C-alpha cells in the first residue's frame, strides 16, 4: 500500500468480509440444512444456525437408501462413480495430451500441422453443440452406462495439448542433444527428461481437469440410464424433482454437500497448483 489511510483500511477489510459472506452464504445455508432433521426442514422460517443431526444425516445419506420414495443408487456408490469418472477424464486427458504434444514438438513427420489443427478444432466443439450425434455414436459403440462412455468421449483436449506444447518449447534444445549423445531413444528421452521437467504443470493441470471431470453434468445425464451408474452431481437434479412430492431437504442438502466437498477440497488444498493451472490453460 502506498499511503496510510486507516479508514480506507477498515473499509477494505469490511468490504472483503462482506464479499466473503455473500459468496459463502449459499454454502452456509446448505450446511445448516444438512444438520437438521426432516421435520425442522419443513417449517418456515428455515434455521440459520446448525442443529445437531449432522452425523445422523451423514450416515443416512451415505449408506442408507438416501431419499425415501425415489429410485436412486446409494450415495456412496454415486461418489464412487463420480470419482472414477473424474480420475479417468483427468488422467486420460493428461496422457493423450502429453503424447500428442511430444509428437508435434519433437518429431518431423507428414501432416504434423494437419494433426495440430485437428486437435485445435475440438476447442470449438463443446459437447453442448453436438449433443444428439455424439450420443448416437456412443450408443452405437455400446458405451452407454459404462465408465468408458462417461470418460472417453471427453478426454480429447486441445487446451492441455497446447499447454504441454508450450512447456516443451521452453525446454532447451541442449537437453535433447545431450540425451542423444548419451544414446537415448525418443521414448527414453520422453520418460527420463520431459516428464520430470513438466511435473508441476501436470499437477496444475490435474487440479483443473479433476474439477472439470467431477462437475460434468449434461454428458452423464445423457448416457446413463442405469441408476448404478449415476454420478453424484447428476443425482441432485433427480432429488430436486423428488423433493416436489416429498421434500427431505436435510438429505438433499447433505448430498449436495458431499458432492461439492471433493472438488472444493482439491481447490483449497492445492491452491497454488490450482491458480497456476487455471491461468496457464486458459491464457
Amino acid at each position, binding site marked *: 500500500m502506498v499511503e496510510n489511510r486507516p479508514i480506507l483500511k477498515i473499509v477494505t477489510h469490511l468490504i472483503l468480509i462482506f464479499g466473503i459472506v455473500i459468496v459463502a452464504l449459499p454454502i452456509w445455508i446448505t450446511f445448516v440444512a444438512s444438520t437438521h432433521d426432516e421435520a425442522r426442514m419443513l417449517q418456515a422460517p428455515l434455521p440459520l444456525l446448525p442443529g445437531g443431526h449432522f452425523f445422523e444425516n451423514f450416515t443416512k445419506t451415505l449408506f442408507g437408501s438416501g431419499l425415501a420414495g425415489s429410485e436412486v443408487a446409494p450415495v456412496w456408490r454415486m461418489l464412487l462413480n463420480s470419482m472414477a469418472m473424474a480420475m479417468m477424464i483427468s488422467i486420460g486427458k493428461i*496422457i493423450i495430451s502429453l*503424447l500428442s504434444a511430444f509428437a508435434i514438438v519433437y518429431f518431423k513427420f507428414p501432416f504434423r500441422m494437419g494433426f495440430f489443427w485437428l486437435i485445435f478444432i475440438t476447442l470449438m*466443439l463443446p459437447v453442448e453443440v453436438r449433443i*444428439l450425434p455424439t450420443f448416437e455414436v456412443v450408443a452405437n459403440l455400446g458405451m452407454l452406462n459404462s465408465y468408458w462412455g462417461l470418460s472417453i468421449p471427453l478426454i*480429447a483436449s486441445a487446451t492441455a495439448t497446447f499447454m504441454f506444447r508450450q512447456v516443451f518449447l521452453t525446454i532447451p534444445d541442449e537437453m535433447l542433444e545431450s540425451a542423444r549423445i548419451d544414446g537415448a531413444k525418443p521414448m527414453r528421452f520422453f520418460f527420463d527428461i520431459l516428464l520430470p521437467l513438466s511435473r508441476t504443470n501436470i499437477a496444475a493441470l490435474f487440479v483443473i481437469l479433476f474439477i472439470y471431470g467431477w462437475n460434468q453434468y*449434461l454428458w452423464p445425464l*445423457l448416457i446413463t440410464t442405469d441408476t448404478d451408474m449415476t454420478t453424484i452431481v447428476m443425482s*441432485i437434479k433427480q432429488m430436486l424433482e423428488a423433493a416436489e412430492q416429498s421434500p427431505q431437504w436435510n438429505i438433499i442438502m447433505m448430498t449436495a454437500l458431499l*458432492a461439492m466437498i471433493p*472438488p472444493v477440497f482439491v481447490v483449497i488444498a492445492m491452491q497454488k497448483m490450482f491458480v497456476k493451472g487455471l491461468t496457464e490453460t486458459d491464457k
Partner: protein
Amino acid sequence: MLKRVHFTKSWLPFALVAPQIAITLIFFIWPATQAVYQSFLIEDAFGLSTEFVWFENFQYLFTDEIYLNSFGRTIFFSAAVAFISMSSALILAGFADRVIRGATVYRTLLIWPYAIAPVLAGALWVFMFNPTLGIFPYFLEFFGYDWNHYLNGSQAMLLVILAAAWKQIAYNFLFYLAAMQAIPRSIIEAGAIDGASPIRRFWTLVFPLISPTTFFLLVINAVYAFFETFGIVHAVTQGGPANATTILVYKVYNDGFVGLDLGGSAAQSVILMIMVIFMTIIQFRYLEKKVQY
C-alpha cells in the same frame, strides 16, 4: 513450433498422436458433421422417413418466434451474468489488492465456489429461494414482496442469473487480482505522489492497465453463460415458466431429447457451433495481439 533439434522417425509420432486423433475424429469431428448433415433434413419422430430440405430448418428457426425470443433472452442472460460477476469480482479484487496481511486468506475464501458444479449452484439457490420454505422469500414477505419463481418469469430469470453469476465470481476475481498484482508498484506510487486519491488511481491507472484482462474475461464469461449454464437452468427452472428461462443450450437439449425434433435441434446446434467458432477466434486473436487502449 518444431524444435530445431528433433527426431525423424517414420511411425512413432503417428502412434503418439493416434489416441488423441482417434477420439477427436470419432467423438468430435464425425458428430459435428452429422449435426451439420442432419440440420438439412426433416425426419419424423419415429425415424421412418427423412427428407432433404436444404436450409428449411434454418429458415423455420429464424421465423420461429420462440427461437428468436430464446436468442434474445440468451444474450440478455449472458450480458447480465457477465456484468454482475465481473463487476463484483472487480470490486473485490480492487480491495484485495490493497491488503497486505491476510491477502491469501481472503483469496482462499473467495475462490472456492469455482469448484462447485453449475447444477449444484442451481440447487443451492433454488433451495434458498424456495417459495414456501426458502429463507429469502420469507424475508421478502416482510417487505410485502411476493416471490414465486415457479409462476413469475422475471423472478425465474433473476434467480438463474444470480446463481450463474455467483459461481463465476471466483474465476473473475482470480484473474483480476492476478492482473492487478502484475502492475508495477511504481506506477501506483507515482499516481499517489501526484496527489491522486485511491479511487482516482483506480479509474485512471489500474482499470486501463487491466483492460486486456477485462476483454479476456468478457469472452470467457460469454462462453460460460452460453454453454456451461445448462445445469443451472435444468436444476432451477427447467426453462420455465412458459419458456421464460429457456436459453439456447437448454432449447437444443429440450427440442432434441424431449421434443425429438432432430432436424430443428441439429440446426440449432449448427448455429451454436458457429457462435463458438466465432468466440474462439476472438479469444485467440486477443492472445496474439493484446488489446491496446
